[in-house]
C-alpha cells in the first residue's frame, strides 16, 4: 500500500495548536526538545511509509496462518517488526530505566496514527507488547520488572491481554479461568481464552500473556479476578528461555478484516503445566487491567482516526485522477470534456466531510493524550484534574473515533465509485479493517454505558463540566468573528442540548430506561460538540496565521480572484484556508445532529423496548 497521510495537519495540531513546547519544559520530558519531536515524527512517518505499508498487503492477502498449533506471520512482517523494535519504537513511552524512551503520550499518539494507518494488523502487536511492558513496569515486583520489562520494550518478547472467554465477552466478570497458588508462590493457570490478539506468532522469541483468572474462593464477578503474567515459554532465573509453559494456540479466527493480526484461541494448562505469576495483588485484576485498557482504548480510537485519515488521502488522490462526467457548469453539453471527479460538488462534499471528521477525531485523541501527559507532569489536585479529563474523554476517544472512522472509510470507498469496491485500491481494506475498532476493547455500546453511567457523574460531574466549559469559551471567542459566528452559535446550541438533556433525564421516572436506550447517541452528541469545539479553536488559530501570510504577500481577500490565485500557489495559505472551511463544514453538517438526537431522546420514544423481537 502507498500510505498517505496529512502530515501538515498532524504537525499543525501537535506543534501549533497544542502547546507541546510547554510539555517539554517539565522535568519528566526535559531531555527532549521540539526539534527532536519533529525528527521523531518524520522518522516514524518514514518507517510507516517505507516499511509498515510495504508489508501491509501481505498481511491482508496472505494473513496470519495457523498450522498445527503454530501461527506464522507473512514473511515480510519479521524484518519490519525487527526494525521497529530495534529503533526503540515499541518502548517509546516506557521509562528509560527499562529500555524505554520516556516520550510524551502526545507524540506517541501521532506515531500510532502512522503505524495504525499504514498497517493496522502489525501495529496491534506493537501496541499490546508496549502495553504489557507498561503494566509490569507500573505494577510488577522488582524481580518481575527486571525479568520482563526491557525485553518487551525492545520487542524481543511480545505481549497480549487475555480477558475474553466464550461466555465472558462484554461480561468480563463471567470469566472462569482458574489460578491456584503453588508452594513456590507462582500460580497454576487453567482455562481457555478466545479472541486473543497476537496470542501466538513468530515475530518474537517469547510472548508474555497478561491473563485475568479467578483464585479459589474468589467472589463472583469482576471483583473476583486477579491478573497473571503467563509467558509462552518459561524464563530461567538468569533471564534465558527455558521450557514451554503449556500455553497452546488451538485456532485462529477467519475474519472480515485485520487478516494480518492473528486472533487466537488459547488453552492455558491443557496439561496442568501452565505457570503464572501474580501481578499486583489478588482480586485487584480488573482494577489493574483497566490501566492497560484505558491506554488501549485511546489507541483503538486512533485506529478509527488513522483509517479515516488514510482512506481520505486515498480518496482525495483518486478524485483528482479519475475523469468522469462533465463539469456541472457544462452539464447539458455532451461535447464537453470529462473532468476529474473532484470537480463534482457531491464528491467534494464527501471529501470535506471525511476530512472534517478525521481532523476532529485527531484533535480529540491528541487533546486526550495531552491531558494524559499533563496528568503525569502536574502534581496533586492539578494532576487529578487532568486524570479525570482523560477518564471522561477515553470512551469518547474509543467509541466516537472508531464509529466515525468506519463511516469515513465508507464515504471514501464511495468517492472511488466501483473501483473502491475492488482490491486494486486501499479504500476497501480501510473499511474492512475499521469495523473491529468499534467492537474490541469493549464494544461501542459498552463504552457508551461507561460514559453515561460512570464518566459523566465522575467527581461530581466537574470534569465533564470543565470540558464543556472550554467549548463554551470557544463559542464566546468565535462568535465575534463574522465568518465563524454561525458555526459558533451552532456549537452553543449543541452544548445547550447536552447540558439540559442530562439534567432532564435525571428527573424523569423513565430516566434509566432512556439512558440505557440512548447511551450511544448521548456519547455521540458529546463527541460531536467536542469535535466542533476543537475544530473551531483550530480555525481561529488558522485564521490568524493565514492573515499574517496574506499581509506579508499583500493580498486583499476582498479581491476574490487574486485571493484564489494566491491560494492555488501557496500551500501553506491553502492549508490554513482549508482549516477554516473544514471547521465551518463540520459545524453545519455535524452539529445539527446534536439537537436532532436530543429531540428523539427527549420524546421518550421506547419502541425498541416495546417491539416484539
Amino acid at each position, binding site marked *: 500500500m502507498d500510505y498517505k497521510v496529512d502530515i501538515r495537519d498532524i504537525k499543525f495540531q501537535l506543534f501549533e495548536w497544542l502547546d507541546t513546547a510547554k510539555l517539554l519544559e517539565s522535568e519528566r520530558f526535559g531531555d527532549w526538545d521540539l*526539534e*527532536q519531536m519533529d*525528527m*521523531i515524527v518524520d522518522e516514524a512517518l*518514514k518507517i510507516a511509509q517505507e516499511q509498515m505499508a510495504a508489508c501491509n498487503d501481505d498481511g491482508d492477502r496472505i494473513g496470519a496462518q495457523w498450522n498445527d498449533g503454530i501461527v506464522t506471520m507473512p514473511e515480510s512482517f519479521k524484518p519490519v517488526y525487527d526494525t521497529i523494535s530495534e*529503533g526503540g519504537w515499541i518502548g*517509546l513511552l516506557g521509562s528509560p530505566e527499562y529500555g524505554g*524512551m520516556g516520550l510524551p503520550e502526545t507524540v506517541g499518539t501521532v506515531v500510532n496514527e502512522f503505524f495504525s494507518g499504514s498497517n493496522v494488523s502489525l501495529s496491534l502487536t506493537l501496541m499490546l507488547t508496549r502495553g504489557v511492558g507498561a503494566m509490569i513496569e507500573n505494577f510488577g515486583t522488582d524481580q518481575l520488572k527486571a525479568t520482563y520489562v526491557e525485553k518487551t520494550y525492545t520487542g524481543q518478547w511480545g505481549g497480549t491481554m487475555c480477558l475474553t472467554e466464550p461466555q465472558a465477552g462484554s461480561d468480563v466478570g463471567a470469566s472462569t479461568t482458574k489460578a491456584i497458588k503453588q508452594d513456590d508462590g507462582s500460580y497454576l493457570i487453567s482455562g481457555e481464552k478466545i479472541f486473543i490478539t497476537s496470542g501466538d506468532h513468530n515475530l518474537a522469541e517469547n510472548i508474555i500473556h497478561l491473563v485475568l483468572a479467578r483464585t479459589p474462593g474468589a467472589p463472583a464477578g469482576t471483583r473476583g479476578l486477579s491478573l497473571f503474567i503467563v509467558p509462552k515459554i518459561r524464563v530461567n532465573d538468569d533471564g534465558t528461555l527455558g521450557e514451554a509453559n503449556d500455553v497452546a494456540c488451538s485456532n485462529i479466527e477467519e475474519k472480515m478484516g485485520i487478516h494480518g493480526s492473528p486472533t487466537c484461541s488459547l488453552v492455558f494448562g491443557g496439561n496442568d503445566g501452565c505457570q503464572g505469576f501474580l501481578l499486583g495483588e489478588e482480586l485487584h485484576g480488573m482494577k489493574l487491567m483497566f490501566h492497560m485498557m484505558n491506554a488501549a482504548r485511546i489507541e483503538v480510537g486512533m485506529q478509527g482516526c488513522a483509517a479515516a485519515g488514510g482512506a481520505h488521502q486515498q480518496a482525495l488522490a483518486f478524485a483528482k485522477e479519475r475523469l468522469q462526467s462533465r463539469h456541472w457548469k457544462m452539464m447539458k453539453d455532451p461535447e464537453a470534456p470529462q473532468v476529474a471527479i473532484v470537480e463534482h460538488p457531491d464528491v467534494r462534499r464527501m471529501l470535506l466531510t471525511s476530512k472534517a471528521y478525521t481532523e476532529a477525531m485527531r484533535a480529540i485523541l491528541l487533546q486526550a493524550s495531552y491531558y494524559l501527559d499533563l496528568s503525569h507532569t502536574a502534581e496533586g489536585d492539578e494532576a487529578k484534574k487532568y486524570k479525570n479529563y482523560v477518564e471522561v474523554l477515553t470512551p469518547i476517544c474509543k467509541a466516537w473515533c472508531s464509529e466515525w472512522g468506519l463511516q469515513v472509510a465508507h464515504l471514501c470507498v464511495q468517492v472511488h465509485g466501483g473501483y473502491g469496491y475492488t482490491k486494486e485500491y486501499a479504500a476497501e481494506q480501510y473499511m474492512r479493517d475499521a469495523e473491529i475498532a468499534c467492537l474490541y476493547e469493549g464494544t461501542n455500546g459498552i463504552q457508551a454505558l461507561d460514559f453515561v453511567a460512570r464518566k459523566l457523574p465522575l467527581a461530581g460531574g466537574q470534569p465533564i463540566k470543565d470540558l464543556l466549559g472550554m467549548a463554551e469559551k470557544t463559542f464566546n471567542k468565535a462568535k465575534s468573528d463574522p465568518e465563524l459566528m454561525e458555526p459558533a452559535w451552532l456549537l452553543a446550541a449543541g452544548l445547550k442540548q447536552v447540558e439540559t438533556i442530562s439534567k432532564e433525564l435525571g428527573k424523569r421516572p423513565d430516566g434509566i430506561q432512556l439512558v440505557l436506550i440512548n447511551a450511544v447517541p448521548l456519547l455521540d452528541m458529546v463527541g460531536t460538540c467536542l469535535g466542533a469545539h476543537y475544530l473551531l479553536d483550530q480555525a481561529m488559530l488558522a485564521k490568524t496565521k493565514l492573515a499574517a501570510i496574506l499581509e506579508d504577500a499583500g493580498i486583499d481577500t476582498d479581491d476574490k480572484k487574486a485571493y484564489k490565485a494566491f491560494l492555488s500557489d501557496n500551500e501553506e495559505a491553502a492549508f490554513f484556508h482549508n482549516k477554516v472551511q473544514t471547521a465551518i463544514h463540520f459545524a453545519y453538517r455535524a452539529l445539527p445532529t446534536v439537537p436532532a438526537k436530543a429531540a428523539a431522546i427527549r420524546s421518550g420514544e421506547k419502541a425498541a423496548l416495546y417491539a416484539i423481537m
Partner: protein
Amino acid sequence: MNCIVCVTSVPDTASVIKIGADGNQIDEGGIKWILSPHDEYALEEALKITEAQGGEVTVVTYGPARAEAVLRDCLARGAHQAVHVIGGEETLGDSFKIAQTLAAILKDREYGLILVGVQSVGTDNSQVGQMLAELLDLPHVAGITSLEVGEGTLNASREVEGGKEIYESPLPALLTCQKGLNEPRYAALKGIMAAKRKPVEKIEPSDIGIDEGAGAAYRLRSLSLPPEKGEGTLLQGEDDPAGAAGNLVKLLREEAKAI
C-alpha cells in the same frame, strides 16, 4: 578507521518545486529539506565500517544554516560528530567551489576513507566527489555498489554498461556511493536523543581561506520548469483499425518525432 562523509541537504523529492522571483533559484518557501538520498548510502557504509573496525564517522556539510538539520539527522543515525561550513547560497551548483571548500576543511584531518554520495539530488552534477579527491590527491572510485575494506587497501566495484568493474585501491581513498551499496538505516529513538549532545563544529568559509564571491567556476543564469504535460490524443480505431494505425505512425513520426 575514521571515515569522513560529505553530505548535502536537498529538497525532499516529493516537494513541489517552484522557481523563485529572481529566476535563477528555486523558491524555498514550503520546501522540506532532507539528506540527499545518495548521501544516505555513503553514511550507512561509513557507519558499517566503523562499527566493524572501530573508528569514528565525521559528517561534513557546506551549506546554509538550515543544513544543520541534515547533520543532526546523520548524528541521529550514528555519526559521531559533524562539521558545518556555513554558507553556500551563492555557490550552489558550483561543484568546483564546493570541492575546494570541502578540501580546505579536510586537508588537515585524519581519515582512512572519504565517502560521498554519487551526486546530490537537484543539481545532479556528479562532480564534487571526483574534484575533491583530486584536490586532496586521493585515489578515487565513483559510483560504487560494493565495498570491502582491508588492511591498508580496499576493493570496490561499480556497475558499468553490461558488466561490473572491480577496483583495488590503497587507503586513504575517496569513494562516491550509490544505490545498491547498502540499505540505509533509520534513526533509532536513542540516536535521535543522543544527536542533540553530539558536537557540531561551525566554521565560516573565511576561517578556512575561502572567498565565496571570488573565482566562480559556474554560474546559474536561469531556471525553468519542464513544460506541462499536454493532453493525450485518443485515436478512434474501432471502425477502421488500419487507418488508425496509419495515423498513429504519422503522429509518432511527425509530432512526437519518436520514430
